[in-house]
């Protein structure tokens, strides 16, 4: 089966994207990326120390795994744009996770500022994957602004509550002609599987993997769940029903 995700002309086979912020060590993070074969990880520019010979996170990202710098710490569009430029200068490439948060209590993104940043960054040639509160109208605006993918949250960052925003994400998946990546809040492999069954293009996970007692094993479980969910989506799933249905319907003799 030749199934791949395409973003900005790049083919991505592995639909598990991994965040790098909360691991106990860079080595552990590298093991997770290697074992899963993840092809896209996010890196906070604020954590990149290009001057360090031993503690530059970029040195621990395996070949074959694309780096997507995120604008963590930015509180408005202007700051996000400046951080994105810094990321590019620091060797992180031009793929950017637009992440603008100005509420440190709930860590929910600011959709309006994210739209402004996407408009500016797309014009400068950045490939923008935009973290957002799920919202169809804003999704359409982000596409017009030049977003390469849209990343609605499943539930607030770090909560591990799963796909609480299912109905809104499903509407976006069914309505928008752009990759929809569920980012944040996925706590279990079954959450990731659920996203993929809905038709999401990928999922992005950090907390649930990084703080697990066995990050490598749980990451592999997430990877398998993503693959299972994708396969189920492509295969097409039977509709759920409230009542039992006989496997040999009464009109079977008409065949």
């Amino acid at each position: 089966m030749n199934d791949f995700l395409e973003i900005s002309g790049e083919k991505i086979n592995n639909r598990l994207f991994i965040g790098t912020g909360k691991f106990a060590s860079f080595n552990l993070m590298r093991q997770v990326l290697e074992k899963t074969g993840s092809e896209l990880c996010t890196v906070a520019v604020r954590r990149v120390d290009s001057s360090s010979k031993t503690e530059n996170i970029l040195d621990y990202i395996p070949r074959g795994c694309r780096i997507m710098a995120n604008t963590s710490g930015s509180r408005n569009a202007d700051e996000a744009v400046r951080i994105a430029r810094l990321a590019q200068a620091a060797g992180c490439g031009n793929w950017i996770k637009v992440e603008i948060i100005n509420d440190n209590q709930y860590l929910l993104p600011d959709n309006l500022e994210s739209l402004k940043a996407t408009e500016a960054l797309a014009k400068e040639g950045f490939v923008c994957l935009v973290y957002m509160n799920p919202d169809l109208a804003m999704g359409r605006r982000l596409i017009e602004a030049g977003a390469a993918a849209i990343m609605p949250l499943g539930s607030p960052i770090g909560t591990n509550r799963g796909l609480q925003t299912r109905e809104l994400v499903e509407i976006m998946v069914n309505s928008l002609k752009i990759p929809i990546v569920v980012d944040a809040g996925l706590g279990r492999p079954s959450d990731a599987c659920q996203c993929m069954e809905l038709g999401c293009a990928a999922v992005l996970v950090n907390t649930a993997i990084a703080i697990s007692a066995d990050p490598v094993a749980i990451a592999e479980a997430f990877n398998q769940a993503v693959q299972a969910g994708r396969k189920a989506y492509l295969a097409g799933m039977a509709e759920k029903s409230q009542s039992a249905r006989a496997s040999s319907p009464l009109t079977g003799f008409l065949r």
Partner: protein
Amino acid sequence: MDSIEVILQKDNITFDDFAVLLSPEAEDYLELLAMASQKITLANFGRTIQLYTPLYLANFCDNYCLYCGFNADNQIERKKLSPTELKQEARVISSSGLKHILLLTGESRQMSPVSYIVECVKVLRGYFSSISIEVYPLSQAEYRLLVEAGVDGLTIYQETYDQDTYCQVHPRGPKSDYAFRLDAPERGAKAGMRNINIGTLLGLADWRKEIFFCGQHAKYLQDKFPEIEIGVSLPRLRPHQGSYQPACLVSDKNICQIIAALRIFLPHVGITVSTRENAEFRKNLIPLGVTRMSAGSSTEVGGRIMQKNNPRGSCQFEISDHSSVSQVKAMIEEKGYQPVLKDWMVF
């Protein structure tokens, strides 16, 4: 009032709940509280501890704080770093890999004016990616000057929220103005500080009340300035030049309860434990909810470059954890956490 078990099931912890978490009765549930605190901290901060170190610019002081080595009455050697000395000190710290620095001065507008601090910040921008200040309370316009120079964080402790105790331990000098100090974090927030760290000096008054009010202060700041990262430090009184002894004892067990209660009440607030505490205790606190630690500290002006042959001493207080930065990093790694040396940048 709800029971501890009920409170731990809640998503939104009220002030009443916070008081219960700090109560003597809650001590019986300490392990349960610690487990809840660990879970929340891991979810919000991951397995990471951010490191910083203090850099004392000057120890001239017009205050008479009973508990402080810089007290104007104390016969200590008074110093102020020159630009050359500052660069030397910065180089020594920078060679350890640290990128976050906390600048401190005593309160002397004459000897350490804002213009001097601004000049120091400009020098240090060449060495560090994040510069915070812990200096005397300033006006909003003065904080703005420092933000424009490159400061991104403000640390200021109220010391004690009890006004009577405050007057007693700050008998004279500019610091005796309780309200001006209390409003300083807010002025800093309005001036554009990205992170604000508050605290109470544990040992001056009943710690349960102090932490209750400190938590309220942090919550007030978080609600009013949601875009700012709020932190709480837990400095415990240490020996210093002078005769003041802590009015209230705060045990290690109490510190554990404080961390857990603060974390459950304020899930996203940073919690700092400095080298005032000894290495073994700090190590044990890591999984409980701490997110930030100092390392390679000196509380002396030019402590990393000057000859240590001054019999009178000139430090603000004695530190307990004399570990080097690499030793602190190793200790954090041993506990299964990642020491984070860089978590911000000037941009």
